[in-house]
């Protein structure tokens, strides 16, 4: 299957670098979001962007550098699964914070300091 993907990519003229640039941009947007956003849910979404960047990287490397091995593609599937579990868990905790404090803004959740 990976060989097929590779063939398709080559015929459409997409190179490995283009995938890597896409993933680096996506990752950077995610990092920016985590640092700049103040709402816990939006921070989580930014983390998801970073994880998706990793998945793109993994699949691109798998297809272009080791077409006979599926490790990168399997890794991407595991990342998707774990990300789903992470969001479920995180939303539960955000919900508890929201119930107890009436806000999901991380700047206002600041009773613990130094």
């Amino acid at each position: 299957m990976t060989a097929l993907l590779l063939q398709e990519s080559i015929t459409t003229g997409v190179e490995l670098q283009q995938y890597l640039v896409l993933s680096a941009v996506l990752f950077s947007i995610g990092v920016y979001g985590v640092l700049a956003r103040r709402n816990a849910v939006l921070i989580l979404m930014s983390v998801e962007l970073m994880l998706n960047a990793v998945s793109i990287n993994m699949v691109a490397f798998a297809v272009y550098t080791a077409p006979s091995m599926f490790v990168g593609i399997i890794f991407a599937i595991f990342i998707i699964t774990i990300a789903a579990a992470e969001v479920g868990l995180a939303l539960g905790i955000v919900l508890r914070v929201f119930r107890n404090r009436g806000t999901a803004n991380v700047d206002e959740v600041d009773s613990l300091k130094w």
Partner: protein
Amino acid sequence: MTEGLNLDYSLLIPEFLLVGLVVAIVGLDLYAPKMKKTWLAYIAAAGLVAVGAVSLGYWDTDDNFANIIVVDDYTTFFRVFFVATAAVICLASATMVAEKFRHPGEYYALIILSTIGAIGMAASRELMTAYISLELLSFSLYVLVSYQKFDAKSNEGGLKYLLLGAFASAMFLYGMSLIYGITGSTYYSEIAVGLQNPTGDFQWAMLMGLVLIVTGLGFKVAAVPFHMWTPDAYEGAFPPITAYLGTTSKAAGFALMLVLFSQAFEVVHDDWSWMIAGIAAATMILGNLVALQQHNIKRLMAYSSIGQVGYMLMAIAALNSDTAQALLVHLVGYMVSNMAVFIVIIAWYNMTGKDEIADFRGMRERAPLLAWVLAGALFSLAGLPLFAGFVTKFVLFQSVWNEGFYWLIAIATTTSVVSLYYYLQIMRQAFVEKPAEGEESRLPVPLLMNGLAAALMVGVLYIGLYPQALFDVVEAATDVLFV
């Protein structure tokens, strides 16, 4: 695809037993509602001890499961280490959990699940497995930290831990993807082979990958500048979970680091050694200095543990077989001493409901045994002779010194002296200050807590006076990493 791979499931029996124990504990909690809830803790602890005994049967094995999970003396060492820690934590939380939570089964189940994750981090020899184990440990800990649903502090600690933890694992993963792209493999041994060739154009990609991996692992072990979540998660969590965060989660991080850097990245030692040396220096200085101005005991222990992480990171920076041994010795000494301190904190919190340092006043009169254990364990953490901390720190510092990191050792010894000051602050409250008005009476310390504290103190003294036995075990455990 599977020909030639060893698919011997009997190697994983301890993990299967732990999963069975999880199901049994949750089942008992649901189907035997009349049973006293403290029994769940005793059953969990007994089960964990039994699993530890089973794992001991794998001593001297050197085998692997499909090249992914290796069962050798290193794995056996950490299996016993993590299982023992979890057993102590289960016993220490028995009374408190039975009083406060409606379904304590899940609490013990999560502790055991996180133990499986921690073992996986030490045993795996492949990035994907290591990552999944790491997440199994972290996810269980996120839930445990925020387990007190209606306590705003617990929620807050959990939220901060979770957001930063998720951010860190994303970084860790991106680093892994870069390393995978360069070497074409996720197996440690094949990564080492791939990095042996001159990396040429990929030099920057490899450096970037290493930086991101160090960042991700730095978050997990709470190294400066990635430590911000630590004090908040420690203060917000239930006291036994704080103890658990400080031991298992850190030890697992170091177990993974040790294998990863010795098996996969040893060939590019010079490229990451300086990063970790710098982080170690910052961690020692900042952890110990900020600890000086803490007034909450859990926050103080958080910064003290950050300082200890700095000492352990030195061993990773100067990685060779000697420092690896010293690191494991120090981990064991730190685990026993830290646990002893936390048993005292937990027992005191159970009886008085307070966790400020000033609330420890008059402990010598109100609970003499606990006070003496506290003193011994704190002296051990500070590294005074007679106690475990002295021997383990001495071995650690000496092995790093031999590698030529003189400036790190200078910082380490100075900050050790600083740490004595804040440990003595706690002892001043416990021994010199008189109890508050109307609180002079002796406290009824439960036998279990006294017993645990005394047993851990015996451990601290044993390692301090006869360290040879520990050295022998650790030597066997690290030999397999450096062939």
